[in-house]
């Protein structure tokens, strides 16, 4: 058995392909039901957002699973969809899901919305009965690590839009915005957007000042703010802790004389002025006045760039969290006694099939390559179909109470010896899983050393090529 993910996203496929394969909410139940009916897929979750459509599946055979998923995507998106498809297996599939849940695979690095979408996709599949022990554990751990990425690393905290960057700067000065007064100069789109963000921060009062009073009144109504006539701009400036300016004026609307008079009336309390207008509304010389923190559009874009760089740095921390979560998941898999038993049963089935093929080759030496391939496919299909239900039942019973006793019976029924089981137990599912089984100080020192080395290597935490199939 293997965990496989197949999908396409904003990086691999254009929107016209993505929209064809996406699964609308109304179609999800039927899609999941169709997957439940197939023999190849044992567990499945469909994640479909505007930027990606992915199917996570536990399949009995890697090749059959891959074929099934390729066909599924081709049916929805046509032959073109296959060209943009990516398929990952086992550890890489699990890692991919965790990166998706943490927002590391998103269009905007570290965005938080995807975590909710992953959770919704999982819950829908679980409710429909499409998930089992493997995907349940995997998705729970992925959601958990996604929450940690937000709460501990805080990857989504640094805003990456200009209007949010303005709020970030205001918060750097005032911290909590409760009780602060905001003056919006101009009633343009950017003013509205920034005012919206500030309003969400719980400001005490907002005034809107515009050359055309009617437009000021209109915007003020939207936020429950007070309109201010243009002549009262100085009064508004004197009262405000935060000034957002975005008029269409060609010259400075707030010059040093006006700002100086207003500031003199407000004592030594700091004021943050954000000038989003181009051409600028506020004379840059105002920034030199005491207690004024003045920022223009270039400054805000600088903040956004710095925030993006910071998110990239935090992404490295999140990658480490993912590596830890993967190690834990691998350990959990290794602990599932059913794994070596299933592997042994499958191996036995494959050995019988190989033996039958050899016998056929001897008895029918004139078979063409195509016929041999056809026979191989069909005999393998017999093995897969024969084992499908027993394997499924083994998994279910293994995690039920007294699962150990059931497993013994299964081993006897299929004639699996203790040596066979031991051999499969030793062949670790994911090499890292058994590594992490130790404890104590040496383990701590080893982890510490690894952490430092990993940091030295940057993002290359789990070099590819060290992976092994989850199940044989």
């Amino acid at each position: 058995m293997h965990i496989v993910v197949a999908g396409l996203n904003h990086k691999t496929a254009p929107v016209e392909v993505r929209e064809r394969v996406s699964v609308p909410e109304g179609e999800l139940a039927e899609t999941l039901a169709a997957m439940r009916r197939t023999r190849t897929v044992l567990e499945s979750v469909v994640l479909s957002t505007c930027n990606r459509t992915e199917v996570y599946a536990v399949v009995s055979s890697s090749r059959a699973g891959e074929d099934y998923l390729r066909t599924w995507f081709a049916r929805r998106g046509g032959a073109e969809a296959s060209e943009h498809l990516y398929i990952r297996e086992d550890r890489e599939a699990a890692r991919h899901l965790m990166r998706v849940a943490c927002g590391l695979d998103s269009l905007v690095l570290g965005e938080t919305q995807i975590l909710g979408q992953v959770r919704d996709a999982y819950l829908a599949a679980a409710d429909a009965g499409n998930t089992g022990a493997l995907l349940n554990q995997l998705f729970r751990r992925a959601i958990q690590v996604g929450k940690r990425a937000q709460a501990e690393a805080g990857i989504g905290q640094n805003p990456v839009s200009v209007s949010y960057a303005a709020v970030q700067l205001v918060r750097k000065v005032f911290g909590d915005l409760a009780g602060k007064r905001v003056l919006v100069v101009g009633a343009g789109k950017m003013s509205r957007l920034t005012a919206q963000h500030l309003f969400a921060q719980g400001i005490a009062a907002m005034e809107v000042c515009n050359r055309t009073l009617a437009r000021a009144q209109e915007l003020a109504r939207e936020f429950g703010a007070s309109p201010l006539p243009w002549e009262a701009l100085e009064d508004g400036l004197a009262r405000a802790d935060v000034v957002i300016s975005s008029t269409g004026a060609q010259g400075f609307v707030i010059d040093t004389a006006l700002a100086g008079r207003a500031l003199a009336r407000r004592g030594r309390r700091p004021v943050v002025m954000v000038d989003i207008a181009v051409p600028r509304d506020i004379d840059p010389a105002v920034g030199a006045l005491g207690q004024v923190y003045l920022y223009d559009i270039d400054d805000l874009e600088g903040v956004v760039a710095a925030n993006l760089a910071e998110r990239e740095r935090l992404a490295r921390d999140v990658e480490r969290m993912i590596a830890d979560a993967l190690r834990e998941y691998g350990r959990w898999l290794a602990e599932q006694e059913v794994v070596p038993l299933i592997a042994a049963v499958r191996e036995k089935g494959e050995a019988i099939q190989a033996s039958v093929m050899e016998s056929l080759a001897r008895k029918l030496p004139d078979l063409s390559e195509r016929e041999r391939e056809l026979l191989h496919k069909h005999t393998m299909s017999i093995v897969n179909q024969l084992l499908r239900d027993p394997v499924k039942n083994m998994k279910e019973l293994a995690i039920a109470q007294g699962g150990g006793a059931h497993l013994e019976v299964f081993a006897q029924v299929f004639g699996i010896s203790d040596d066979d089981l031991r051999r499969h137990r030793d062949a670790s599912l994911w090499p890292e899983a058994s590594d992490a089984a130790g404890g104590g100080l040496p383990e701590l020192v080893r982890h510490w050393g690894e952490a430092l080395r990993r940091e030295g290597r940057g993002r290359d935490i789990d070099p590819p090529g060290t992976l092994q199939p989850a199940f044989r």
Partner: protein
Amino acid sequence: MATERILYDTFVALYALSVVLFFLDAVHPRRALNRTALGLLFASFVLETVFFLDRLQALGTVPVLTPFDALSLVAWLILAVTLVLDAFFRVDLVLFVANLTGFGMAAFAFFRPMGAVYTAPEGDLLYLHIGFALVSYTAFAFAFVFSLMYLVEHRLLRAKRWNRWHFRSPPLDKLDRLAYRSILLGLPLLLVAMVLGTIWGKLTVGRFVYLDPKLFSTTVLWGMYGISLLLRARSGWSGPRLVGYNVLCFTAVIANLLVVGGFSLFHHV
């Protein structure tokens, strides 16, 4: 004595290493560096606690009567407060700047004699007097830390430099409030220490000691911090000018602690 010295030397070495790692983490943040620095800081705290207990046992009395002990105790208090704060809230940069200050004290203590240099008789009042004074100094040290952080962040915001200090620093308003509260805590504690010291002087010497330079300088210091609160409350002083004044006040604390004591009849701390 040899055990104490080894303990203290190890403590200073670990403390130094921790502060260096915190500095590296501040310049180039790395989770592993931060965790290692925090671990070392905790180890330093444990070592210094063991050192104090050992010294308590060896002296048979609370070790606060020498310049060395007093400075070490202030460093220990800073360590304890920052570790507790960090356990509940992630104070991040505060942890670094506060312990940089704490390490400065511990390092200075490193070069001070360990033997008792007080010439006056000991007593419960004296311990209380020194204890209150040291806690107030610790509060002023925190006011200094928050003020310094305010000035750096203010400069960054004015210069529009969005570096890692900017990301990790608390908001200006919060730093201002924390500095204010630290002074608000330190001021009455210092007043209590002064009153207790005066009473102790009367009981020991038989008269009120008015002409001791330390008493005079401490009164001036108390007045300086008092003015800080007054400026804030009355004339609406706030922002960089006020926190700059707080930094100046702390240099007066250091001078009072390290320089003026040398001229005092009783104080050598």
